[in-house]
């Protein structure tokens, strides 16, 4: 203490040999800088090392390039290949790695850091690169018996699973229902009997894909392979040899006989270690653009601990931080992608004094100009910036048109746009200036644009994709609130009354609330006494009434309309039940306030009364026509309520020739995305297994490479960034996505017709055809024949049995026709 050292052991000390740390060490070695990489274990890359054997390590985001000269190569491959390749690179570059060197604390300052190792040794360095990630210490069981051994020698409890295939015919209890626990349970279940121990009864922390898989596995019959016993609502009490003792929330003791316990109960955040390094954190440790800690100069934090969990980012950062320490900071790897977006017009608009902007400056500008993003860390903005759009538009240019199926969110960074709120009168504009955003209605409902938006003066727009915003909404409540507040006002304006006094509108907003209902949940109960009016802003509902002991559907109401006005107008109890037909959100408007609106706005009153008349007469017709109501019930039950474009087959016309399937295969590289026969039928209407292009597509929710998009015409498609992970397939409740490799090229149709060459039209499902396919399996689904002259299935139907319809319109037409 006190003595100032004249020289340090190393210039750079790197802590942690994950992708970030290893990359830094390899680059320091290449650049000939004195360095040491301190690794706690006896191998590199402990986190990936502990992945299940043969697990595929994913390389996302696809667009992100590697830094020029980056030592560690990385592409999507198996855990083993990644570790082998990096071990070799580390050896080739002669990176100086010290294994079994666990750092206990870091003290000192730039130029003279002291790293105290466990065991008492200390290492000094001018700079420290902290790349320890967040997977450091796995949580361990603290119950009695957690350390005892099984009678056959192995410890009863383990905290990792290297190779699921190494276990066979065992009874294994897996504790923990996060992704790790679920993945372990699923991998082990094929050859072992699994008890999945859950303190609750659901899987809230798991990715949706894993959740779907585990629920499917639990539902399987117990004697089928791959089935898992779900032990719910229990806490662990004690471990014995061959036994795990649990206690239920009801107090009952549950004994699970097992040969092995695998506990996957999370990891300890390294907060105590950071405290010992004098880094104060709540959330992510704050760092500068060059990843230097803002609290301790000379100490750099990269990788997952700095907020970048993706391997590609980690590798680049290791490289960048070494260059930065050497005094020649390189721009981040995504900088060229960002620069491509920065046209001279955009730079001039953002900062007239400059000819060019760096990515970091652009982010500052976005934070300053778009209040929605002002609370985000630059890191978070940078992450989605490469996918986002910057548009500079001249007055009169159309941003999007009413009826477009796009659903990204736009923010005005400079200039002004006008929203055409009245389709009949394009001059009727609501103007939005800098800092305002628009497009949130499509974002919430997933429906087509409700209004055309044009630039009214030169305008700079920042466009962010729907998926990005949905992810942000989940992680940043502030973003969600900003969007929600604005959305309610606009929805009330758009769907009910375009020109309402602000004071009145404020009263409406203050007293209204958002109600969310899952499919089949009841929004309004027949006979109830409440009388709020509900403005449906997402999803759709059915209106039904009990007639002679049977629920008869009277109406189907889609987003953008209101329900529940009858009770209000007639001062009677509810006359019908309103049930969500898909995941639905409604704005509940207080009845007193709604009455006040009607009194103040004669135009609104007239519209509401007209609609009331129409609905009353519709109901008369529908009550006498049970068949149409039954068909609506069927279609809604089959999830039609959330589709935008559904293939329906009239079975009284369908001759089962399967030409639709053949046409689909022939126009889509030999794989049919449609299964005609599968799927339910009701009253001659058959719903084949084919994508219905949901308003809020389930498949998009968890796509690691973000490969699923919605095109302007509404079709949901998968682009060539698909990595074949199968999440979308598992998330689709309608089973319309399959994992398939493409068949080989076939001889021409005439060769088949005249000489019988090749398998003929349609997907070659013969044994030979299934075996001889090209490349790896990727997710394939209906893309509505994007770019062709209409859907091939419909065009190829010889009898007119197949049609593609918008369900809401179809139901409307059907109601009117009967």
């Amino acid at each position, binding site marked *: 203490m006190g003595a100032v050292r004249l020289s340090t052991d190393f210039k750079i000390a790197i802590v942690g040999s994950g992708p970030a740390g290893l990359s830094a060490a390899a680059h320091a070695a290449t650049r000939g800088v004195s360095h040491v990489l301190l690794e706690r274990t006896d191998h590199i890359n402990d986190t990936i090392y502990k992945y299940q054997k043969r697990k595929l390590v994913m390389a996302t985001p696809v667009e992100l390039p590697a830094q020029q000269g980056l030592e560690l190569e990385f592409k999507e491959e198996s855990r083993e290949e990644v570790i082998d390749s990096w071990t070799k690179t580390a050896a080739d570059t002669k990176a100086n790695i010290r294994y079994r060197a666990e750092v206990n604390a870091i003290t000192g300052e730039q130029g003279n850091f002291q790293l105290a190792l466990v065991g008492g040794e200390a290492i000094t360095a001018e700079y420290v690169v902290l790349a320890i990630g967040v997977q450091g210490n796995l949580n361990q069981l603290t119950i009695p018996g957690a350390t005892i051994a099984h009678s056959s020698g192995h410890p009863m409890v383990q905290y990792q699973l290297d190779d699921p295939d190494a276990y066979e015919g065992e009874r294994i209890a897996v504790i923990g229902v996060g992704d790790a626990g679920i993945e372990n349970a699923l991998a082990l279940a094929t050859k072992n009997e699994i008890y999945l121990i859950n303190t609750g009864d659901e899987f809230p922390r798991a990715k949706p894909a894993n959740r779907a898989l585990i629920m499917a596995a639990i539902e399987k019959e117990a004697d089928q392979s791959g089935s898992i016993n779900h032990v719910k609502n229990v806490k662990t009490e004690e471990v014995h040899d061959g036994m795990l003792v649990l206690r239920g929330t009801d107090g009952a003791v549950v004994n699970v006989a097992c040969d092995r316990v695998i506990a996957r109960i999370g990891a300890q955040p390294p907060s105590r270690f950071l405290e010992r390094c004098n880094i104060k954190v709540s959330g992510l440790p704050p760092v500068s653009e060059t990843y230097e800690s803002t609290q301790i100069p000379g100490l750099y934090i990269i990788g997952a601990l700095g907020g970048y969990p993706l391997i590609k980012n980690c590798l680049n950062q290791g490289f960048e931080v070494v260059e930065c320490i050497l005094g020649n900071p390189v721009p981040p790897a995504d900088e060229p992608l960002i620069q491509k977006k920065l046209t001279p017009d955009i730079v001039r608009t953002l900062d007239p004094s400059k000819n060019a902007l760096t990515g970091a400056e652009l982010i500052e500008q976005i934070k300053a100009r778009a209040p929605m993003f002002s609370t985000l860390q630059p890191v978070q903005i940078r992450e989605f910036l490469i996918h986002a759009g910057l548009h500079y538009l001249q007055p009169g240019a159309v941003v999007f048109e009413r009826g477009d199926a796009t659903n990204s969110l736009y923010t005005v960074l400079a200039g002004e746009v006008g929203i055409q709120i009245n389709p009949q009168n394009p001059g009727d504009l609501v103007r939005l200036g800098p800092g305002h955003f628009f497009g949130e209605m499509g974002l919430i409902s997933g429906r087509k644009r409700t209004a055309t938006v044009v630039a009214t003066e030169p305008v700079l727009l920042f466009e962010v994709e729907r998926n990005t915003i949905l992810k942000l909404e989940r992680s940043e409540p502030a973003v969600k609130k900003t969007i929600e507040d604005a959305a309610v006002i606009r929805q009330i304006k758009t769907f009910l009354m375009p020109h309402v006094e602000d004071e009145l509108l404020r009263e409406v907003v203050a007293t209204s609330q958002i109600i969310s209902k899952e499919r089949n949940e009841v929004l309004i109960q027949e006979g109830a006494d409440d009388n709020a009016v509900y403005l449906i802003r997402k999803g759709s509902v059915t209106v039904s009434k009990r007639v002679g002991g049977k629920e008869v559907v009277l109406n189907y109401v889609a987003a953008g309309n209101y329900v529940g006005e009858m009770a209000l107008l007639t001062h009677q109890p509810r006359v019908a039940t309103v049930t969500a037909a898909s995941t639905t959100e409604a704005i509940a408007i207080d009845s007193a306030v709604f009455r006040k609106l009607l009194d103040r706005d004669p135009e609104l009153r007239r519209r509401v009364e007209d609609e009331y008349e129409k609905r009353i007469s519709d109901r008369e017709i529908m009550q006498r026509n049970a068949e149409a109501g039954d068909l609506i019930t069927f279609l809604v039950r089959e999830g039609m309520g959330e589709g935008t474009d559904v293939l329906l087959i009239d079975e009284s016309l369908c*001759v089962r020739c399967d030409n639709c399937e053949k046409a689909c295969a022939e126009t889509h590289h030999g794989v049919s995305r449609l299964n005609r026969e599968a799927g339910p039928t009701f009253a001659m209407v058959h719903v084949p297994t084919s994508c219905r292009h949901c308003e809020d597509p389930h498949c998009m929710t968890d796509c690691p490479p973000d490969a699923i998009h919605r095109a302007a015409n509404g079709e949901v498609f998968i682009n060539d960034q698909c990595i074949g992970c199968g999440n979308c397939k598992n998330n689709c409740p309608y089973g319309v996505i399959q994992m398939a490799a493409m068949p080989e090229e076939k001889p021409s149709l005439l060769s088949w017709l005249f000489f019988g060459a090749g398998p003929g039209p349609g997907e070659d499902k013969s044994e030979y055809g299934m075996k001889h396919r090209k490349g790896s399996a990727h997710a394939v689904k209906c893309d509505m024949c*994007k770019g062709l002259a209409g859907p091939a299935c419909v065009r190829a139907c010889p009898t*007119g049995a197949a049609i593609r319809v918008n369900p809401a319109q179809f139901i409307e037409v059907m109601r009117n026709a009967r």
Partner: protein
Amino acid sequence: MSMSDTAALAATRGRLSRHVSFLAYDNFRYLKLALAAVAGSIVLYVAVPPYGERYGGGWAGYTLGTVGALLILWLTWFGYKKRTYDPERKYLQPHGSGAPDSAHQAEDPSRLARRLSAHVYLGLALVVIATLHTGFHFGWNVHTLAYALMCLVIASGVYGVVAYVRYPRQMTENRQNMTMAQLQAQVVAIDAELRRRVMPMDDAMATIIRGSLDNTPIGGSMWRQVTGHYPDCGTVQAIARLQAMPDAGPGAIDDTWRLLRTKLDEKAALVFRLRRDVRFKALMDIWLYVHVPLTFALLAALMAHIVSVFYL
């Protein structure tokens, strides 16, 4: 309203229309066309005076003959067109995001239904056109052979239309909102139960049940498919033999007997429905085995007819 709006509206209207049968396509457009062609042919036949006996010669005869021959070729071409799904572009770009063509959007989506509608009505019109072309002269020659083949092809086609109108609805009703796979799964489940139940039983009973388990075919030869007649069906036999068994008296055996009988009845009903399904499908397919080969025979005979008339 801009052009693209009009196109979009037309497309919406087209897609809003409910299912329309190929027979009623576009308000019977091709029926009307065929009737016009028939009327025109009759007028031609009656109005243009022959210079001898009425037969295929003379300009009216040649016109009818040429129209008929071209129609035959065009009708045959249907088989090729049915299997070409997009003539301009065989495959979609794998994951292209090219802007869709709005002109394409407005095109009638049911391309093949339109073609089939025309195929049926113009094919029927051919009967009249070709008959008038013959001038009602028939004999044991290649000319009449071509005519006879044509009539057979058309007759099989008429059967096809009838089958296409008749069986789809019956097929659906037969399935009672279930898929073939679901029906089969039920049969498999019953079989599994029968197998379990039969294990502790005596040989006589086991043999009866095994007959049902081992020999209950669905489908098979074309004859079976079309007739739905399976004389050696193990399940039917098992039920008959169970029925014929002497009364075992009250008690456990009686219960087992009743249970097996119920299960076999259930299975027989399911198998009956599956066979009916197969039968309907076969009835919708079988005529093509006549229609298509005879078409090629017709083409050959037609060629012989034309060559012999003009060059021999």
